[in-house]
Each structure stands twice: as structure tokens, then as C-alpha cells.
């Protein structure tokens, strides 16, 4: 199918809009609510399952609230664990939405337009998961208002954590408002005004880099932890994020086009796969550079890396994790690098899944935990997540999928033209939809 240029946009001429009336928003919200509450049996089973997992997580969290964080595997030596690992990884997933936003809105590369709303939805879900993971990790979640500037005491700019709070919430705001605006326009069968959303998009591109760099600086800024205190940490975060995030988007798009009538062209998936491949290759180069630095002339500061990869003083709990991750990463990157395999979806999808999991391990068990081992005085205390941590984390992942499903359930009928604003015609009193063909290409 030939990409449709803006001037040939299949909507009524002159229907560029920048005014969003409360009446329309109300109708939009009502229709959105109808859309998410209706669906086939499969949809309800899926949402029911997610709800069940969320409730299990909530139950585990209630135990943690009552007993304290002692029910986790964390302690004074390994003071961050599974929660912060997941948080770090998900910031990367959220940041990856930019890889789709950039070409779609700015370079007007229409091939990505079908993917971009999905990518932004993914970012929103990932950000909610990030915030949830940070909250469950806190000892005093009830005192979180101390963080609100004005009422609490916000230690900005000194603390990188305050920067993270700002960039994450800002990014969440951008990724909620831009798709909302576009969807409400499409809902009325109108074309969104570029002068309104493009500045927002440019900011969010810049912002996406920020969220992941700032999160890396959270760790890189601690001279007390030599494993993290490296200038490569930030760039490496970006590279791994820009492979794991779009890899997830490929999987999600494949699922969506299989189960809905939302059409995504192969060429779109092919382009995203190229992004994944390049990012994964850069990530491997950086990994090699890190390994060289740690192992060619190991110093006292290489102890964490030695512990991680080979074990130290008889402790080696993380070895299986990291070697699994490295093997999976090499395998997936290998498949992606070979053109015939990458273009074959039988290979591409498993490769994306493997890459995604390998980076999840690498950013979590392979990065956050070894930063604490050995401790500041060289003592080794190992860490394994408890079932409470695992249940709570699963619950948060289920929450993310739940949010994402809701967003997609709203966006797809609008994008496929099935859900449109209904105007009341005064004369006849009968309801008519705005007259326009179902859209194939919207942004």
C-alpha cells in the first residue's frame, strides 16, 4: 500500500482541528469506557487473569507493609534488589517509545505511524510500572508526600533521585497527553494540528533520552560503588533500552495484528527490527569494552565483576544469571544480524523475546545486585528475591499489561475508524456519525 500523503488525507477537507470541546472529551471518555468494558470471551479471560495476578501481588504487598521490608531478600549489604532491578529495566522500555516517535512525527516516515501509538501506550504502561516498583521499594510509602515540591522538601538539584522523579513524571505527562490529543482528533474524524503536537513530540524525544540517562546517573554518580561508577553506564543503558524496548514493540505489534483488525505492514516491523539490531550490536560492543576493562588488569574495583561472572571467595550466586543473559544476548543478536533470519518472522519473534529477557536479566540481576557485592568493606552477602518480592513484581507486571491492554482497546477502534464521535442532528433527531471512510493512515 502506498503511503498516503497529508494532502490526500482521507478526511473532509479543512478538518484540521485544534479545539477540543469538553462535550467531545466527555463523549470520548464515555465511548472509551464502553470500549474497555466490552469484548469477547478471550478479552475477559485475559483481563480476569491479570486481575487475579494483581490481587496476588496486592496480597503479598500487604504482608510486606505489615512486616516491613524484612520479608524481602534485601538487607543492609544488598539494600536494593528485585524491585529496583525491574524499575531500571522498565525505564529503558519506556524510553524506547522514542525510537518510534522520532521518525513518525518528525521525519514523516509513515511506515511507523501504525506503531507509534502502540509505542506510546507501552511507555505509559511501563512508566506506571516504574512508579509502582519505586513505591513498593520504599520503607515509608505513606510519607511519599515529603517528595512533593512545596509541601515536602525536594532535594533538587543535588539528588539524582529528584531528577528522576521529575523526568519520569514529565515523560508520563507527555506520553499521556500527546496520544490523547491525537486520538480525540481522530475520534472526531479530524486531522490533529501539527503545530500543537509536534513541539510536544520534539520535547518527548529529548525527554526519552533524559529518563534513561538520568536513571543511569542515579547509579553512576556513586563513587562508593565502583561497579556502577563508570562513564559507560549511561550510554550502555541507552543501547540496551533501544534494543529491548522496540523488541517488545515488535512482539506486541505481532500479537495485535493477529488478534485485531489493526493492520501493521511487514515493512513497519522490518524497520523496527533494524533499530533493534543496531542497538543490540552497539550494546555488545560496549559490553566487550567493559569486560576488557574489568578483566585485562583487574583491580580492587573489579571485584564485583569478578563475583558476577566467575564468583568470588566461594560465592557465585549470580553466575547462572549472567551467563544465561550473555548467551541469550549473543544468540539473539546473531539471528538479528543475519538478514534472511531477521526478515523471517519465525526467527524474528523468538529472537526479540530472547533479547528482551536477556536484557531484563542484565539490567537487573546483572547490574543492580552485583553493585552491592562485595560490600564497602569487601564482605559478601548474597541476594535472592523472596516469594513476596516475586509476587509483588508479578502483580506490577500484570498491572502494566492491564493498563496497556486498556489503552490499546481504546486506541484501536478509533484508529481503524470503528469508533467515532456521534453528532445529534437537530432536525431529524437521528444520530449520524461524522461522514468519513475508515482510516488506514492516521498520523
Amino acid at each position, binding site marked *: 500500500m502506498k503511503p498516503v500523503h497529508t494532502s490526500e488525507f482521507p478526511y473532509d477537507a479543512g478538518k484540521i482541528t485544534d479545539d477540543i470541546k469538553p462535550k467531545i472529551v466527555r463523549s470520548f471518555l464515555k465511548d472509551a469506557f464502553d470500549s474497555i468494558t466490552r469484548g469477547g470471551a478471550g478479552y475477559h479471560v485475559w483481563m480476569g487473569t491479570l486481575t487475579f495476578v494483581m490481587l496476588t501481588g496486592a496480597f503479598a504487598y500487604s504482608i510486606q507493609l505489615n512486616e516491613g521490608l524484612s520479608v524481602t531478600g534485601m538487607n543492609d549489604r544488598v539494600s536494593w534488589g528485585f524491585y529496583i532491578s525491574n524499575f531500571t529495566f522498565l525505564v529503558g522500555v519506556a524510553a524506547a517509545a522514542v525510537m518510534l516517535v522520532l521518525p513518525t512525527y518528525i521525519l514523516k516516515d509513515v511506515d511507523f505511524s501504525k506503531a507509534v501509538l502502540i509505542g506510546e501506550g507501552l511507555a505509559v504502561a511501563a512508566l506506571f510500572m516504574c512508579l509502582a516498583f519505586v513505591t513498593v*521499594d520504599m520503607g515509608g510509602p505513606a510519607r511519599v508526600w515529603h517528595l512533593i515540591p512545596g*509541601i515536602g522538601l525536594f*532535594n533538587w538539584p543535588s539528588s539524582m533521585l*529528584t531528577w528522576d522523579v521529575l523526568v519520569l513524571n514529565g515523560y508520563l505527562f507527555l506520553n499521556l497527553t500527546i496520544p490523547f490529543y491525537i486520538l480525540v482528533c481522530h475520534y472526531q474524524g479530524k486531522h490533529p494540528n501539527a503545530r500543537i503536537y509536534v513541539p510536544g513530540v520534539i520535547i518527548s524525544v529529548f525527554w526519552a533520552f533524559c529518563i534513561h540517562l538520568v536513571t543511569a546517573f542515579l547509579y553512576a554518580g556513586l563513587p562508593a560503588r565502583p561497579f556502577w561508577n563508570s562513564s559507560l553506564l549511561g550510554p550502555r543503558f541507552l543501547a540496551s533500552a533501544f534494543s529491548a524496548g522496540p523488541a517488545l514493540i515488535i512482539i506486541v505489534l505481532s500479537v495485535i495484528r493477529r488478534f485485531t483488525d489493526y493492520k501493521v505492514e511487514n515493512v513497519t516491523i522490518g524497520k523496527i527490527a533494524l533499530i533493534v539490531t543496531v542497538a543490540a550490536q552497539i550494546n555488545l560492543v560496549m559490553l566487550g569494552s567493559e569486560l576488557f576493562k574489568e578483566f585485562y588488569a583487574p583491580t580492587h574495583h573489579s571485584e564485583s565483576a569478578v563475583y558476577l561472572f566467575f564468583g568470588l571467595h566461594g560465592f557465585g550466586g549470580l553466575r547462572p544469571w549472567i551467563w544465561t543473559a550473555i548467551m541469550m544476548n549473543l544468540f539473539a543478536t546473531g539471528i538479528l544480524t543475519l538478514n534472511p533470519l531477521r526478515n523471517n518472522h519465525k526467527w524474528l519473534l523468538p529472537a526479540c523475546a530472547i533479547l528482551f529477557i536477556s536484557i531484563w536479566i542484565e539490567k537487573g540481576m546483572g547490574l543492580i545486585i552485583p553493585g552491592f557485592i562485595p560490600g564497602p568493606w*569487601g564482605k559478601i552477602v548474597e541476594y535472592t528475591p523472596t516469594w513476596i518480592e516475586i509476587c509483588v513484581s508479578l502483580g506490577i507486571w500484570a498491572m502494566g499489561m492491564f493498563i496497556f491492554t486498556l489503552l490499546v482497546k481504546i486506541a484501536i477502534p478509533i484508529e481503524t475508524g470503528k469508533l467515532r464521535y456521534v453528532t445529534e442532528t437537530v432536525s431529524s433527531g437521528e444520530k449520524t456519525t461524522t461522514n468519513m471512510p475508515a482510516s488506514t493512515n492516521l498520523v
Partner: protein
Amino acid sequence: MSHCNCSSPDPIRKNGMHELLAENVLSDWLKRDDEMNYLRSMPSLESVLMWSQYNNQPTSLAITKRTAADHVLDKGMDRRTAVQAMAASLMAGMGFFQTACNPFAPADEREKSQLAWDDYFQGNFRIMTDKEKEETVRRLERMYELNTGKRINISAKGPIPGVLYGYAFNISKCRGYLECIRGCIEENNQDRETGMQYITLHEHKKGQMNFGEAPDDFYHEVPRDGHFYIGTQCMHCENPPCVDVCPVQATWKEEDGIVVVDYNWCIGCRYCEAACPYDARRFNWQDPVVPENEVNHNQHYLGNRLRKKGVMEKCTFCIQRTREGKNPACVEACPTGARIFGNLLDPNSEIRWVLANKKVFRLKEDLGTEPKFWYFMD
């Protein structure tokens, strides 16, 4: 203060107005006061849990039928008060609390709820006025009394001008008796259940100084042949990374150089623990337990007062002792005299003598944290 002034819509503050009123008016006012206390007696979920744990019984809470919104309308407010009121209505609306009006609830219970409420919305200690600090510690004392029937003394004493504390550790003298650790735990009301300790004693083999190979959990006769001992604890860095990273300024360096934590303000993110190169910070992973008969009743707000679960704590150079001119408990407890403490700004202090006459060093100096904790040998 005149009569008409009293009828202004500000029945909450008690600042001494009662003395000036006729007896019958006074009793009216007390009733009104009670009611208002009652109104404000909607503590946070967390405080509720805390209270019921202290009492080992479900807390009975009651609020009047007047909503918090009325409260909002009643008086001019600052921002924090507004937030309190909003949160109150939110909580009431969400049915977090029993809404049944129960004016016959014991006065004790109502006071407790009120104090828990104030406790939750307390501001950051560092930026309080002296008066607010005083009110805060009085409240904490009262809370303890209501719970245990015992009185404690919590000080809010500020730094003494012209004082900067420093510490020196004599490696030649330490024989690994661990008396410092015992003294510290008793003085500072540390959690007995998890065996929390601020001080770590590392047993090094002679001929090397590799902390990774020096056990800190030895239980055998000391001093052990061929070994020497080094103690570590919070070094009260002049340039403390733990303070920089705290997102809510719950930890800071006082004028006299002591790095402290406001246990009421800390949100328990543990970023400071990751940032400390000296393994000095300790987190309350669960509710700390100190049997009442072992509690040290001489406390300081920033020091050894009882902590709660989910907050960070650490060595404070025994702020409750040192600001009264005494030595920290570890210095007192050490039978060999290996520990020296004093004012770095006083040229005649013992610590200054050590710095001038011994060849001293500090740990991890390359990190630029400027610890005020020196080591030396005879």
C-alpha cells in the same frame, strides 16, 4: 487576650489563653477544644498500624460527623494544614476509618489519635523554629508516655557554637573486646531483635590490611594471635555523599559536623545507604524492638530516640551525650582507651593533640568524602 478575641474561629491553638478566662467560659472552651482535637483525630493508615501494634489491640478511632471540609473552612491555613485537611477528607471519604461518632471514646485514645495525626504531618526537623522543635519533642514524649506509662526525656538541643567533632581510633590499643559495640547498642536503643550495630570491628591478619579478608563477626577469645583490630562506623564526612543523594533532605550535616537523620521525615528509599562508602547506615527492615526496661530514657530527637520500621539510622556520635559535653558511649565503654573524641576547633583538645603528634590516616581518602575519623598507631 479579650473575650471577643477568643471567639475568633481558631479553637485549636491553646497558647495559654485559658488562664485569662472566667471559669465557666474556660470549661466551655475545653469542651470545644476536645471536639476539635477529636475532629483532627484521623491518623494515617501507618500511624494506626503503629498504634495498634504498640497497644496490641485494634485501635478504636472516631471522628465527628463534621467533615474535614468544615475544618478547612473554619480557619485560615498554611499549605501543610490545607494538605492535612484534604487528606483527612480523602481518607474519611475512602472509608479508611470508622466514621461512627463515638464521643465516649476514652480521652486517652482520642489524644493518641490526635498525636499520631500530628506526627504524620510533622514537617522536616531541620527547618523548624525552636518553638516547633520543642513542641515536636514534647509530643513524642507524650506519645511514649501514653503507650508505656513511662516518661522519657527527648532533647532538641542544637549544636554548641565553636564546636566541630572529630574522632580518632588507636589501632595499637584496640584488642577486639567489642565493648564499644555493646555500649553503643545500649546507649542508642538499637533494635535487639535483628542485632543492629553501628560499629563494626574488623579482625585483620598481621601483615596486610585487606578488609575483604578480615572477618567482622568473630566469636572467640580476643585478642587473637597474629591479628589486629580496626573499628569502623559513620565517619561523619565533611563532604558526605549520603546527604547529597537523599531526595527529601531527611539527612544532613549539623553545624557541629554530626551527620543526622530525621527519622520522621525519611521515606526509606535507601539511596543514602547505597551512597555511603563506609557501610555506616542501617535500615529498619522491620519494627525495631527494645524491651522497655532496657530503653535508654535520655534521648535526643536526632539521636537515640526510638525508631520505627522503614527508616534509616546510623551513628550520631551519641548526639544526646556529646551536645551535653560528654563523650560518646563507645569512647566511655572502651577498656583500652583506643577511642578518642573531641572538638577539632579547640587547640587544647585531645583529638587535636593526636592529629598534631601522631601519624594519622583516614580510610578511602581517595573518594574525597573528608571523613572526620582518623586512625593512628603508637
